[in-house]
């Protein structure tokens, strides 16, 4: 009987097979963007697609390096990151506080939720003219625009998070005599955190969408401005640099928030 193998060997074989599969998956993940770039490069250089509209990736990279060494790009990146982070915090922090209050106290929830339901469907960008009138054309208006669009997913998810807390945990807190403050910090906050972080993840994505559009409409610096002015001047290589930067920051922010989730939710 050839089938009767050493059990350790069989297990080792199985383990190696799994490792191989894992590595294959990693490679596939890396391979897909590389593949896209190669096809792009080929099509663009062979003239199958118009290189004026779709400059080859190598040309974009050299433009990127040019912009980087001239220092121009850093300015745009700095100002955009500042707007994103400030707007993000200005949206997330009130979102969490109002969301927790709404989740915990039914009267507050019933009072505020119609306002949120009514305001949420309006794209913040459609409000940009109003925001510009109220806050002027300075930095504040961009930060407020981003904050406005980040706020909604955070507040809605936080309320859902508090409501989703199993009633038995509230009983436990009450039975063991938790004070209002302890209840807030030891039950409501950690209990709603998983939902809240999902909301923050969504908010992060929306912040990036908003910053580009906001900078296209009412700014003279930032990545969105770079994209828009390059397009207007038909400098498509510069425009692509802007687009790729946005994609890069989006990816980094998602990774950061996933990391934060792992760190804050070891119990999940």
């Amino acid at each position: 009987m050839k089938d009767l193998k050493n059990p350790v060997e069989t297990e080792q074989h199985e383990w190696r097979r799994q490792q191989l599969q894992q590595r294959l998956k990693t490679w596939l993940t890396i391979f897909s963007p590389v593949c896209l770039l190669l096809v792009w490069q080929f099509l663009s250089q062979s003239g199958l697609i118009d290189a004026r509209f779709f400059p080859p990736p190598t040309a974009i990279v050299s433009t990127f390096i040019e912009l980087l060494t001239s220092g121009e790009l850093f300015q745009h990146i700095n100002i955009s990151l500042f707007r994103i982070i400030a707007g993000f915090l200005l949206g997330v922090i009130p979102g969490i506080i109002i969301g927790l209050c709404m989740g915990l106290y039914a009267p507050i929830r019933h009072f505020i939720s119609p306002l949120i339901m009514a305001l949420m469907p309006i794209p913040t960008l459609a409000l940009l003219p109003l925001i510009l009138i109220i806050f002027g054309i300075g930095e504040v208006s961009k930060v407020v625009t981003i904050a406005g669009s980040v706020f909604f997913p955070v507040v809605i998810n936080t309320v859902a998070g508090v409501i989703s807390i199993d009633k038995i945990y509230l009983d436990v807190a009450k039975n063991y005599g938790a004070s209002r403050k302890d209840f807030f910090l030891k039950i409501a906050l950690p209990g709603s955190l998983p939902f809240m972080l999902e909301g923050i993840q969504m908010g992060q994505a929306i912040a990036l969408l908003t910053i580009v559009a906001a900078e296209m409409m009412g700014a003279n610096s930032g990545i969105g401005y770079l994209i828009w002015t390059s397009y207007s001047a038909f400098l498509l290589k510069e425009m692509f640099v802007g687009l790729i930067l946005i994609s890069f920051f989006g990816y980094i922010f998602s990774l950061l928030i996933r990391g934060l989730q792992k760190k804050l939710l070891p119990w999940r």
Partner: protein
Amino acid sequence: MFYKKENSVTAIENISLTIEDGEFVCLVGPSGCGKTTLLRILAGLENQSSGDFTIEKTDQNRPNQSMVFQERGILPWLTVEENVAFGLNMRHLSKSFIKERTTYFLNKVGLSKFAKMYPKELSGGMKQRVSIARAFANDSEILLMDEPFGALDEQNKYILQEELLSIWSETKKTVLFITHSIDEALYLSDRVLLMSAQPGKIVSEINIDLPRPRKLEDIRTDPEMTSKFIEIWNHLQVEVQGSRL
């Protein structure tokens, strides 16, 4: 302790009982008879529409009661250790005291090695051990237990019952324990209270004078225990049949 209730959708009514300090009392009745309602009122989680109860204090610093819930009663975002310390933390006692008591009771329920783990990594039996340790660590006048072993398999249930009795005999706490298992009631308690179906009333009480420490086998072999088993069994049968009509 004295307690009474009458209501239009009456869950429980005319319940009057006294539990002695250090006594282990089991409350047995058909499902839906209001056992849990009674316990929740005593736990301060529900308000009675009429009636009153008092818990006599032996020490002013002690809380009145602590509850052991059916299941899912431990907080998933706290570690085993933090869960056991929960009641003490809520009372804002000194850090060193909390640490000492928590360690002691973790040791008692055999979970010292799991102190830093989160509940998701524990089995059902281990979770209930955490719940029991938390209640005992809180050192309240009376412990209220709402079918804590209801969801466990037979072997685990027996082990936990044994552990519970061992901690109880050491701490001399007063316990009011709800169950629908006759064996469990006979094995654990000094006194079994039988409840009728809705509206729940206490219809009779049976003293269990089997000497401690007990063995589960005694419940099955002792002729007196067997006759008590049958007595409770008949009562439950009648109640369940009666509530069907």
